[in-house]
């Protein structure tokens, strides 16, 4: 109970402090409202957007492409990360190209993505998948490589199949790395969705931000940014929750044992 109170209360306190700073900066430093909107204007935009309902389709569009792309990108990253971790040959053949693909700014290859996947939701999903991929890939690879050798030896003595070892030892052993990757990818995937909406879209929060920015409508921009933040926070919190629940054996939690 108290724990929950704290988890809600503390961020709320910081939030209040931030809002106070926001108002103060506008009042005291005279920051013009074409740069930073007044909280009231943002609140109004949020009201119009979510109570009158105008933002919902955009919100869901972004959410949908982000979620589908995230699942695809992370899934693929776990598979390929495992392959690369398991085989030196795969590593030699694939690794440089994965780094190469990821070092290329996605915006620069956006025209190709649009040509291949069309300018519907598909290209957004692909962009999200591309963005989510890399952190998951590296973390999976490093995590699997770090699996405790004695546990692997144990399984090897029993001639366990690679798949069996993967699911019973490597995956749980790499869980810490994998969940860290999942957290990073939430945020990157979201950015991927928004950036791809910048490049081409008639829907989504990214499109809204871009349109608002062209029209110098900072209040709407902030309202949409806040929506993105809400998605990002919920996503990472969900991952953290799953991490705590699923990786219950995590050593630090059980330290010396907990007494009642």
């Amino acid at each position: 109970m108290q724990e929950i109170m704290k988890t809600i209360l503390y961020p709320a306190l910081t939030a209040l402090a931030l809002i106070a700073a926001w108002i103060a900066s506008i009042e005291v430093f005279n920051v013009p409202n074409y740069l930073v909107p007044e909280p009231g204007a943002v609140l109004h935009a949020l009201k119009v957007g979510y109570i009158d309902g105008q933002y919902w389709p955009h919100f869901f569009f972004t959410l949908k492409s982000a979620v589908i792309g995230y699942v695809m990108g992370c899934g693929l990253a776990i598979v390929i990360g495992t392959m690369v971790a398991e085989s030196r040959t795969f590593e030699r053949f694939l690794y440089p190209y994965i780094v190469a693909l990821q070092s290329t700014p996605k915006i620069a290859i956006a025209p190709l993505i649009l040509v291949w996947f069309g300018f519907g939701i598909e290209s957004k999903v692909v962009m999200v998948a591309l963005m989510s991929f890399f952190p998951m890939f590296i973390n999976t690879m490093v995590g699997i490589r770090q699996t405790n050798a004695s546990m692997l030896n144990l399984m090897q003595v029993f001639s366990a199949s690679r798949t069996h070892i993967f699911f019973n030892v490597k995956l749980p052993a790499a869980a810490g790395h994998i969940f860290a990757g999942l957290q990073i990818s939430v945020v990157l995937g979201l950015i991927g969705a928004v950036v791809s909406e910048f490049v081409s879209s008639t829907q989504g929060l990214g499109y809204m931000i871009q349109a608002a920015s062209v029209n110098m409508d900072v209040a709407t921009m902030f309202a949409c940014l806040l929506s993105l933040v809400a998605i990002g926070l919920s996503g990472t919190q969900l991952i953290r929750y799953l991490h705590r629940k699923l990786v219950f054996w995590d050593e630090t939690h059980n330290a010396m044992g907990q007494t009642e």
Partner: protein
Amino acid sequence: MAAILDGENLSAATQSIDPGPVPSSPAASTPLLEADALSVVYKTSNGPITAMQDVSLRLGSSDFVSVVGPSGCGKSTLIKVFSGLLKPTKGSVRLGGTSVDQPRGDVGIVFQQPTLLPWKNVLDNVLVPVRALGMDVPAYKKKAMDLLRLVGLEKYASHYPNELSGGMQQRVGIARGLIHDPSLLLMDEPFSALDTMTRDHMSIELQRIWMATRKSALFITHSIPEAVFLSDRILVMSAHPGTIVREISVNLPRPRTVETLAAPEFNELCAELRALFSQLVQFN
């Protein structure tokens, strides 16, 4: 049950030993494991360490052989090589006639460290070999529970490893080593973290199980009476370089019981081994 195998008071306990059914006649010892001129040189940060030199060994298909030797003489290395986890620098190992290049499923193993999977509970840890070998899990569940009862942990079946004491973890490791009836059982100091009484109990149980199944066993221990009590043969290793300096046959009749412990042959063997041993360990 009294302390038997720490040998401190050999006549103290005579009660409640059940070494299991006596087999009609011991099976003929056909060579199951053959090791020829094994040497292991480890690469380390400070140059090579010769852990084992020129070790040859033959294990019949129903032999119980113990290895004793000072700390660091290469006993665990021997187990790693036999299980196929470590390639020897020189020499060859053959198991059941074929060369051991990599781990094979028909070996049971108890590591020196318990090596339990922290994300599986005690029962599932015991069942690890069954699952890994693709055997029928439900059929082995009962056996796993029996083994847990044997090691005194039936109440802890659904606990996780980090909720157990050091000795309890080691006992889970022992149960796991016995679950799948391998043709060769490799045990690396399985009883080291156990108290005297538990240790005695486990020795007698191990003998019972071995006599019932008559599989090959290689047993590493620091306790001389334990080695004599359990083995057909005892290999004594020296350190630097790790090599077998003596092989002693134990011809005491089976099943061995507390009476065996009082037998003069038993004590002679222990004394012989101890004398040998004291020459091997030098401190300045």
